[in-house]
């Protein structure tokens, strides 16, 4: 890729030292319109929410270690799994990659100085943080936090006396934040690409963000209006979904999943982009099937918007709907399969360095594949009827969302860490953390497949004794996973503070972010670079051999 003439030795103050406004300290951060600072604001707040949600997950698992009451009552348990879901989905995994790493790296990777609407970008962070605080407020107010599950299914969400309104409002605000980020990214990708950065020279992470942004813009408003309708229904008694007033609870589910299924793709697509970035760098060779990976992102975004009702196969839909939605569900798995095959092929005849980012990517491919395969089982109608609403589904979507997206986020953190902070974490510790996290993760979720098939319904506070061994293994897994997470984040934190300074391009990446200073200066580049090749041009290593050097 293009190499920009930049003085090698002269290190300028980075975005960490220089802000875009006149304020100092905290204000210099929360009022900054620098996309990199906003990316970090997202990172810190998002991680804070992540830890809280992990805490709830830990307690859910602890409660389930044995049948009967272990340490919390049923009501608290119901509130905990609701909070776990809302926080993980709306505050961690949806904004996780686009808002943190998209914000930080999208402009740099296309050779731009910032996103096109920097102030709107800051506004979306404010909406994000407000949404998060409203969600937390609902948890502290009298009445207790919502106990509806993150799906807010009507009529339970209209009936329950807990604080559903703050949770709904929070989700609404967060949706709006996500929309604004999407608008910003689409326009930025269209308008701000550096000279020579044609569409097919875009890094694949950018392609995946582009597809994601479209889903954010076009699907999120549906959930916005749906949740707003539930708010109106609860506060003003307007008859929309409430069966007592003639409403149709299944219609609510349609509208909910019209957004929430594509939302799964908002979560997974950027992670797929990360994988496509990391593999070529650590295999030191060009990606296999660039265009197939790029177009499969668009195909996933498109077909992914047509399959929402596969969450409702037991709801009593028409046979036509069952046929169509099941069929397209199988079709949508094709582009994902294409990606997996291309990634594995990219390892072929590479020159591979198995550093932590790549290790997380390998876990991603393994776990995402399991998530995908179990998705096939859920897509087959007759099997779905049996598996719907059991812990099999819980395992399936955790394999996709945590085993996939979560590990994608971990991979991204380890990959871009040196660029973001100019320091390096301890590689050995990171590798150990990876091993522990991967093992704990699989021990936590795999048993759920088995007990799900044996008939363990989801969202159960208590269970029949026959499921105990699986629950026990799963809870042990959660402890190992959390141990691994603690090691991983401590290592990153220590690295951020005291890690060794890194050169501009520690991994040998070829995309534009590795050509700029580490950590980057405020507007990324002094001169906008001119791009002359595709994003993963590693031919120099091959040439070097032929010339005998």
């Amino acid at each position, binding site marked *: 890729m293009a190499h920009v003439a930049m003085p090698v030795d002269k290190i300028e103050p980075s975005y960490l030292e220089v802000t875009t406004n006149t304020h100092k300290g905290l204000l210099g951060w929360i009022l900054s319109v620098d996309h990199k600072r906003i990316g970090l604001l997202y990172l810190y707040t998002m991680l804070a929410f992540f830890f809280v949600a992990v805490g709830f997950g830990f307690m859910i698992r602890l409660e389930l270690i044995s049948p009967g009451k272990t340490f919390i009552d049923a009501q608290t348990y119901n509130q905990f799994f609701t909070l776990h879901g809302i926080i993980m989905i709306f505050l961690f995994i949806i904004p996780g990659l686009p808002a943190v790493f998209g914000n930080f790296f999208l402009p740099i990777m296309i050779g731009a100085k910032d996103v096109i609407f920097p102030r709107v970008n800051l506004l979306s962070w404010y909406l994000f943080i407000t949404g998060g605080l409203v969600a937390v407020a609902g948890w502290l107010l009298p009445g207790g936090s919502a106990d509806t599950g993150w799906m807010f299914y009507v009529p339970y969400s209209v009936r329950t006396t807990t604080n559903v309104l703050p949770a709904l409002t929070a989700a609404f605000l967060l949706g709006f934040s996500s929309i604004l980020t999407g608008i910003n990214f689409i326009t930025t990708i269209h308008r701000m690409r550096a000279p020579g950065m044609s569409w097919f020279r875009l890094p694949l992470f950018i392609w995946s963000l582009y597809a994601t942004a479209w889903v954010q813009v076009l699907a999120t408003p549906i959930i916005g209006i749906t949740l707003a309708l539930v708010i109106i229904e609860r506060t003003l008694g307007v008859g929309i979904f409430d069966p007592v007033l003639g409403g149709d609870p299944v219609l609510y589910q349609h509208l909910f999943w019209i957004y929430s299924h594509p939302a799964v793709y908002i979560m997974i697509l950027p992670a797929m982009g990360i994988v496509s970035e990391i593999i070529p760098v650590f295999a030191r060779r060009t990606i296999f099937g660039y265009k197939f990976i790029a177009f499969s992102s668009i195909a996933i975004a498109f077909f992914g918007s047509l399959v929402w009702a596969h969450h409702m196969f037991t709801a009593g839909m028409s046979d036509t709907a069952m046929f169509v939605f099941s069929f397209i569900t199988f079709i949508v798995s094709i582009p994902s399969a294409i990606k997996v095959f291309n990634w594995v092929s990219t390892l072929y*005849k590479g020159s591979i360095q198995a550093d932590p980012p790549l290790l997380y990517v390998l876990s991603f491919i393994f776990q995402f594949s399991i998530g995908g*395969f179990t998705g096939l089982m859920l897509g087959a109608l007759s*099997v779905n009827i*049996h598996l719907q609403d059991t812990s099999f589904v819980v395992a399936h979507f955790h394999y996709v969302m945590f085993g996939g997206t979560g590990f994608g986020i971990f991979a991204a953190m380890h990959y871009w860490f040196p660029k973001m902070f100019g320091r390096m974490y301890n590689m050995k510790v990171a590798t150990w953390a990876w091993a522990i996290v991967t093992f704990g993760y699989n021990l936590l979720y795999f048993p759920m497949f088995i007990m799900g098939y044996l008939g363990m319904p989801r969202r159960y*506070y208590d269970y029949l004794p026959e499921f105990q061994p699986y629950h026990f293994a799963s809870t042990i897994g959660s402890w190992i996973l959390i141990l691994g997470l603690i090691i991983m984040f401590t290592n990153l934190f220590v690295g951020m503070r005291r890690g060794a300074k890194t050169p501009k391009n520690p991994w040998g990446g070829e995309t534009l972010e590795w050509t700029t200073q580490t950590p980057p200066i405020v507007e990324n580049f002094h001169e906008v670079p001119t791009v002359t090749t595709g994003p993963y041009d*590693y031919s120099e290593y091959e040439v070097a*051999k032929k010339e005998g050097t």
Partner: protein
Amino acid sequence: MFTSSSNFTNDVDALFVYITALSLIVLIGITVAMIYFVIRYSRKRNPVPKNIEGNLTLEILWTGIPLLLFISMFYFGWVGYKDMRAIPDDALQIKVTARMWQWSFEYPNGLKTDTLYVPVSKPVRVDLHSMDVNHAFFIPAFRVKKDVYPNKKNDAWFQSEKVGRYDIACAEYCGLNHSYMYSAVHIMEQKAFDQWFADASKKANLEPKLVAQTK
């Protein structure tokens, strides 16, 4: 896995095994290839990479073959589902009412129970209705599940194949005691069932006759 306990069990399990087997083959293939490549082409062993941009034949193969396999999975799933929808006309009709957090069953003659008793090898149709929020009628051993709504009629059916007692669970989250919303279905020999039905109906001052089934 369970031993076959209803008319659906075998079909559903067979399809599940089919998909699982195919998935395992591919999963193992992917994983082994990945690990092998990482070791075989490690930077130490293979310091010089080879840039391969892609291969159209491969792309077509790994789009086409999965597509065919997926369509076969879809097809078997659809066929199995059609069976679940084809409720026989002579099925014993039971009205099932769900409320937070219990089930109640009503026989054609008006007999109400909180546990379901049905004769073995006889098709049973359940008409599902909820008094309050959403529930789901789930007999894991029979591979039967259907959501139960207020203001909407749903139904399901099954035909047991073995005498015994099986759990009925609520599978759609419905609040505080969701996990305790269990009931059971007792599958009885026809004679034993008739006896039970006559006794229970007499006790409730109802005519001990299963009224002719009307659709």
